[in-house]
């Protein structure tokens, strides 16, 4: 098993399309870098506006229900396959 050098890692991370697959803890960390805070009750807040994060079914989103933040949008999708399908057809 070869080890990945820094150069290889850099090249890999420059791929045009990437998916970061997360668990709840790492999702919190990544979302925080995107200026989305996970409140104590689990609901997500936009740090810049102070407004709750709304998913594409127009409901406030909690970290437990976070499904995806998909390429090409800031549309939050719950763990709901119909919500993902809606995103796909809106962006086709």
């Amino acid at each position, binding site marked *: *098993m*070869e*080890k*990945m050098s*820094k150069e*290889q*890692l*850099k090249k*890999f*991370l*420059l*791929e*045009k*399309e*990437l*998916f*970061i*697959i*997360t*668990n*709840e*803890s*790492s*999702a919190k*960390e*990544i*979302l925080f*870098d*995107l200026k989305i805070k996970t409140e104590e009750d689990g609901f997500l807040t936009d740090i810049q506006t102070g407004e709750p994060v709304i998913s*594409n*079914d127009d409901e406030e989103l909690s970290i437990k229900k*976070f*499904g*995806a*933040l*998909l*390429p*090409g949008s*800031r549309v939050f999708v719950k*763990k*709901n*396959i*119909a*919500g*993902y*399908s*809606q995103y*796909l*057809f*809106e962006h*086709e």
Partner: protein
Amino acid sequence: MFEAPIAIKDPKLNVKSRIRDFFRLSKTDIDNSDKRKAVLLDDGGPKPAVQISAGDNCEIKPTIIILAPRTGEAICGSYSDLPPEFKKLVTEQFDKLPAERKQDVGIVDNDFYDRIDEFNKFIDSKDNLLDKIIPFVKDPDLKAILKTSGFAKKKFDAADRTTGQQIKDDVGNQFGKTGRRICNLYIRGYLTSMIKDYLEPIINDVAMSDNEKGNKITTIINNSIKFWENVYFIHGGSNSSKIAEEISHLIKKEAPYIAIHAAGPENINLAEKAFEQIDLNTVKEKGYFVSPNKEQSNSKILIFDLIIVKDGKVPIC
């Protein structure tokens, strides 16, 4: 550190399964890593990016998998160990317009990724009836409802009721009553019959523009969904007398919208026979407006639509 690249060149392979195999982790171990489940690697193999220590209360460091769908490569590690310049790039790309972005990065929950991966494969398979009508449907929400309903039906047909029900619930939660109704109708096979018996000939009509097809299909679907029990799509096995009897009953009950749709000479013959048996005097006395319409396009495909509506207006639900 991200020191264990896993290159998977065959896109048919399940990347996540390969990562689990490599790290000797069970699905539960990765999926429940938030719950700090214990995992012990005992073979002295390559040190994984997942941080594991021996003992009763072993801890797994929060783990991410980064997947490049184009090359099929994936790496596994901790988000905090990623180079800061990459993190910055990810952060910035969410604020940029598509034309300005150098990369497209999606962030997907571990469990949910499995589901969207399977749904993507269903979309790519393009072997079901829905793919004939969806390109003509203009409303993206209706497209999404139809396609997701097709996915639910596939699960029910394969006797996977649990997943089928979950998808059906997802449609209801995302799109409300209309979504749930369409999904139910599709799973029960009613929309399949509508597509085969009536919409398919319209789609195949070379004389009709795509815009006309789209308008007609969307109108038919929307009205049929609202008043499904009062809409008849005629096929070879339809019984004209029975349909006429049912329509007469609906008129007595003053149903707001009743329709018969038929395509092709044989089906239209059956539809007209049903129409002849309806007592038009009673229909008019009840305040209905009757609109039989037979169209023949340049491509010789004959379409018959009979719409019976109260006060001449299609009611809004």
